[in-house]
């Protein structure tokens, strides 16, 4: 019993430690990657003991700066309500990750450990439900600070997140029909195979490309970052966190990065095969190459490789999301809302019907 508890705690620390760590690294990656994309060098001045380490110490200096800044609370606002908004946002941003499987099964000490925090039959619904709660923190932030621009930011966020939240759900019905399950672990198991004579990994993206495109677009919109950064709109309204300073602002900022990682995790799980490594099969005890060769890998090696593959894929998708964020210009609010309701919603419905029809015919 105690042992089970420790295993659960260990898994939670592993997953959320990885999530937080990756989000912290993203604050660094964002600067370095945008610098490289724009022929610059990027942050490289902070140093530890004279070592610049490619600018990595900037993660620490940022935290120190945010923690030591003045903590400003506008007049006439209850301090606890003001402090609640960033924490609601931060908590809600983290939680969907709990349903994401970060590995298959680890056999350790004669016990099979399912490498997933919550083994739920409705994992996907849980993740989407929690993700749609992100709007509460944003609305609270704009509303309690009694600032017109912050309220405008909240209104935009409401218009955007509600509109795209609908599409987010519907775009995933296609994959759900295909996999026949809402359990994220089961989805990955379905994808842990090959098709076309063993050449192509059976990943969702190859069967549901349209759903993948829509989900990625909507996922970017859910993170409230460029090209869908209307709730923030730095150049016009500053946005819902206008009246926040110091670490409270930092919490909003970090929440955006955590949401980016969570969107990447969901994308990887639903469309990119989750923890599955192409051609690596646990049942066959190693790699089964398409040309017929076989490379043996011990069972522990298979599990570790799969756990590593999950993070590699998540990191790659995060990189791609940053690439989009630093390439595309921002939408106008009416364009963004029209994109969501008029184009993405019908397309995702169409994708659902198309998938259902194909599955029906092939039955």
């Amino acid at each position, binding site marked *: 019993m105690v042992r089970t508890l420790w295993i659960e705690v260990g898994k939670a620390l592993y997953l959320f430690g990885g999530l937080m760590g990756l989000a912290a690294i993203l604050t660094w990656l964002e600067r370095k990657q945008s610098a490289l994309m724009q022929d610059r060098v990027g942050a490289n001045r902070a140093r530890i003991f004279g070592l610049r380490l490619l600018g990595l110490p900037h993660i620490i200096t940022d935290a120190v700066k945010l923690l030591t800044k003045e903590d400003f609370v506008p007049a006439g606002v209850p301090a606890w309500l003001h402090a609640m908004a960033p924490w609601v946002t931060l908590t809600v941003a983290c939680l969907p990750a709990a349903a994401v499987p970060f590995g298959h099964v680890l056999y350790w000490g004669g016990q099979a450990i399912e490498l997933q925090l919550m083994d739920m039959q409705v994992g996907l619904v849980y993740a989407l439900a929690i993700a749609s709660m992100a709007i509460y923190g944003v609305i609270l932030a704009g509303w309690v600070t009694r600032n017109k621009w912050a309220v405008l930011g909240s209104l935009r966020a409401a218009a955007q997140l509600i509109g795209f939240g609908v599409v987010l759900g519907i775009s995933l019905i296609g994959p759900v029909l295909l996999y026949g399950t809402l359990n994220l672990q089961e989805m990955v198991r379905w994808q842990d195979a090959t098709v076309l004579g063993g050449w192509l990994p059976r990943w969702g993206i190859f069967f549901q490309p349209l759903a993948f495109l829509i989900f990625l677009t909507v996922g970017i919109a859910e993170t409230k970052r460029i090209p869908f950064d209307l709730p923030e709109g730095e150049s016009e309204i500053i946005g819902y966190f206008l009246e926040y300073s110091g670490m409270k602002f930092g919490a909003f900022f970090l929440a955006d990065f955590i949401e980016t990682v969570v969107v990447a995790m969901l994308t990887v799980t639903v469309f990119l095969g989750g923890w599955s490594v192409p051609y690596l099969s646990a049942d066959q005890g190693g790699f089964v190459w398409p040309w017929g060769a076989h490379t043996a890998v011990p069972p522990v090696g298979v599990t570790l490789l799969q756990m590593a593959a999950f993070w590699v894929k998540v990191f790659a998708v995060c990189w791609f999301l940053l690439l*989009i964020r630093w390439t595309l210009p921002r939408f106008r609010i009416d364009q963004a809302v029209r994109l969501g309701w008029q184009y993405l919603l019908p397309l995702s419905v169409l994708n659902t019907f198309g998938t259902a029809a194909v599955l029906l015919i092939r039955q």
Partner: protein
Amino acid sequence: MPGQFKKVRRPPENWWVRSYLPAILQGLWITARHFFRNLFIFTAHRFGLLKHVRAGVVYQWPEEPRPVAPRYRGRHRLLKRPDGTPRCVACYMCETICPAECIHIIPQEVPDPFIEKAPKAFYIDLSKCIFCGYCVEACPEDAIRMDVFDFRLASYDRFQMVLDMETMLNSEPSVPYK
């Protein structure tokens, strides 16, 4: 409606163009190309390779000096006669033309009958100077030039921003490189 206006007709585009996807892919291709090119060259620099190829376009100032064009208007310098006295004759041309009113000259008599006057003190307040170069153009004696290419002019105290005559007389002209 007052005034004339011309209505621009946008050419109708097909659905593929209007889906933005080709333009987005093009943009991603450009930025990703820059990313991988710079990543590759920076990594090569770490290992001492490809040093002659620049990665990125920025100069790592102050470790890496920035090339300055010969026409660059830098800090002011006062020129000297062969005997070491200032060439300036305190004619006030520069002080008069200076749009920022940041030059202050205190003149004094000189024994030499062929020299009108000489500055006793000559101040330029760099915190007001707009680096227009009018003072250089106005000077009839070619006594003032702006060829000290030092742009580390910031200071913690606005009084440190005032250049005095000794500093300007004893500065060396910079050699433009590249």
